[in-house]
């Protein structure tokens, strides 16, 4: 009695009840496909967040005012100023910093030809901001250091702002009024796109003194954007920033800082932690559906064995060894899970090619192998119990079964 023969018996057994075999297989198929697709969706969403954070630039460091988490926000907190930024730009004290861009932000209403649009973010900064924040001009040009020195009323606008105010026409060279002050548009940024709650393309970027003069006053800046010389130099740059600003703010105790330096790296790790939880949750749901599929196999094998007890008796009466009976039923359940799992992998891979609720799923190869292996293992273990029960019957007991 060779394995091929046993396999032939098993295929015959499955073919004898096609609908039932098909439905059982469907249970496993759905379980496996669910595991693959849901994990791919979780992975895809974390991938897209990672991508959008990386779009901001990995060398960038953001300095914002205020202590770290839990630090006392006493009245001795000194705001960040343009002088701080100037100190950081000194290559002697901070050799790993390539550019520094202080930045003030405000929200204003822009008007063009009677069209009014509330701009999410009006940013006053230096030209270095464009490179550090990974903002590229699509049409027109950036404003220059000369524009900053002369406080010229020029602006670079984001693509959302441009569409809302100018429609399809090019905004370059046009004049728009922001919060009562007329600005000349010199450039339009390329669309960044993003998944955050704030549209990064709804923005107006103008020289720092112009925005301070028109809206915020010459007080503190909201944050300072620093670009390190390389991705590997961010940690050193971070230390230099701390040293320099402790000097300018007159702080002796490194645990009582009144400013915060955050890198994209730390943002990234927070985001990926959130996403990991999300993925695990989706995975758990999928695993449950896989388990239900496995119970389906057990149920069907139990029914099959009960229904065919007489047949088992006949086979034993004409000399079928225990191993062959066991092998046949085990092969049947394994075949079910193997076929169901295989089709589930195919369905999962096809399903994850579509965009699901705005997320492009990214298949995790380990989930494909894992789901398939678990499905087959479930078939073996859960099919093993009824098969063992069938094979252990005495022929006369099995024959008397009705």
């Amino acid at each position: 009695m060779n394995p091929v023969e046993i396999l032939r018996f098993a295929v015959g057994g499955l073919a004898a009840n096609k609908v039932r075999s098909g439905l059982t297989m469907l249970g496993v198929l759905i379980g496996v496909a669910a595991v693959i697709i849901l994990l791919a969706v979780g992975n895809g969403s974390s991938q897209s967040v990672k991508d959008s954070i990386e779009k901001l630039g990995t060398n960038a460091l953001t300095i914002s005012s205020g202590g770290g988490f839990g630090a006392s926000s006493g009245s001795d907190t000194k705001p960040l100023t343009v002088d701080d930024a100037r100190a950081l730009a000194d290559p002697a004290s901070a050799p790993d910093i390539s550019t520094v861009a202080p930045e003030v932000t405000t929200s204003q209403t822009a008007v063009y030809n009677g069209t009014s649009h509330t701009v999410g973010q009006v940013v006053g900064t230096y030209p270095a901001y464009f490179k550090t924040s990974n903002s590229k001009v699509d049409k027109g040009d950036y404003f220059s250091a000369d524009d900053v020195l002369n406080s010229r009323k020029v602006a670079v606008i984001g693509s959302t702002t441009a569409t809302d105010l100018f429609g399809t026409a090019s905004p370059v060279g046009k004049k728009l009024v922001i919060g009562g002050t007329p600005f000349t548009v010199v450039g339009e940024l390329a669309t960044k796109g993003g998944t955050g709650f704030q549209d990064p393309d709804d923005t107006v970027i103008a020289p720092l003194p112009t925005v301070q003069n028109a809206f915020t006053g010459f007080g503190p800046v909201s944050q300072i954007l620093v670009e390190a010389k390389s991705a590997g130099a961010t940690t050193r740059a971070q230390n230099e920033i701390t040293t320099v600003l402790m000097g300018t703010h007159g702080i002796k105790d490194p645990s009582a800082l009144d400013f915060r330096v955050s890198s994209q790296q730390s943002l990234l790790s927070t985001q990926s932690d959130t996403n990991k939880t999300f993925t695990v949750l989706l995975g758990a749901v999928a695993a449950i559906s896989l388990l239900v599929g496995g119970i389906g196999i057990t149920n069907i094998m139990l029914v099959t064995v009960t229904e065919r007890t007489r047949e088992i008796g006949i086979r034993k009466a004409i000399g079928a060894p225990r191993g062959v009976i066991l092998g046949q039923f085990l092969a049947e359940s394994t075949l079910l899970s193997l076929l169901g799992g295989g089709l589930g992998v195919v369905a999962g891979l096809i399903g994850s090619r579509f965009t699901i609720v705005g997320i492009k799923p990214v298949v995790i190869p380990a989930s494909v192998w894992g789901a398939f292996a678990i499905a087959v293992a479930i078939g073996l273990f859960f099919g093993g119990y009824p098969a063992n029960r069938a094979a252990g019957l005495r022929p006369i007991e099995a024959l008397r079964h009705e």
Partner: protein
Amino acid sequence: MRQALSSRLGRAGTGLHRLRARTAPAPEAPEEAGPWGPAPVIEVRALRKTYGTGDAVVRALGGPPDPAGGEPAGVDLVVEQGDYVAVMGSSGSGKSTLMNILGCLDVPTSGRYLLDGIDVGGLDEHQLSLVRNRKIGFVFQSFNLVPRTPALAQVELPLAYAGVKAAERRRRALAALALVGLADRVDHRPNELSGGQQQRVAVARALVTAPAMLLADEPTGNLDSRSTEDVLAVIDRLNASGRTVVLITHEDEVARHAKRVLRLVDGRIVADVRQAAADGPPPALRDPAAFAGHAPTALSGTAGGALR
């Protein structure tokens, strides 16, 4: 002894060496080849089968407890090579229980059963399946064919379990089907065959492995008289070619085909009548004309009178 055993079991596979080891310490066994000729196919000593315990005990085989010893005497039976035995008795007389034990489908509560010289009581599960496969051909009253399986595959099944190669299997299965007159029905499934044809498929399946004996538990119980004649003719021919046959029946008409008739009452053998010599053709083939001429009632005197 060892050589004799291994040659008797044929190609017994992995279980054989264990089989030898188990049976080796019984040298006094009467099946030892000697001056008295070949060992009997069946040798049963003090066989008993009970169900339940205590007050609820049911003695299916072995008779009532002996008033002196407290234990029932049990069934003793020896069936020689080539014999044709009919076991008769009313319902509950224990004949089916006896048959199931002889066919290794059930195990006795106590007693010794030597099949073709092998003590069946000492065999494990795997060895029992080998014995069922190679030494016994069992025919059931209710045919017991595997559902949804063509006749040829049914007959090939025991050979498949014995590990015979596909081509050889097919050849032998076709030969067995031809022997029972079903060469033109090899592709028919059980639901496409008449009762008589199904039973002949079952007989073909029982004899395809060339077993030492054919056991038939009321093989004609579910058949009309025409099919009964067909099946009995097949069994007669098998016995004439030297195969040992034990069958259970209710009917005198069937029992008169046998060379020896046993009657069971309450789990005990109460009558043992020989109708023809063990080594020779069965009654129906010895003198077909005379056999056919006799009325069924002609035998009732010797077989033990009214049965129902």
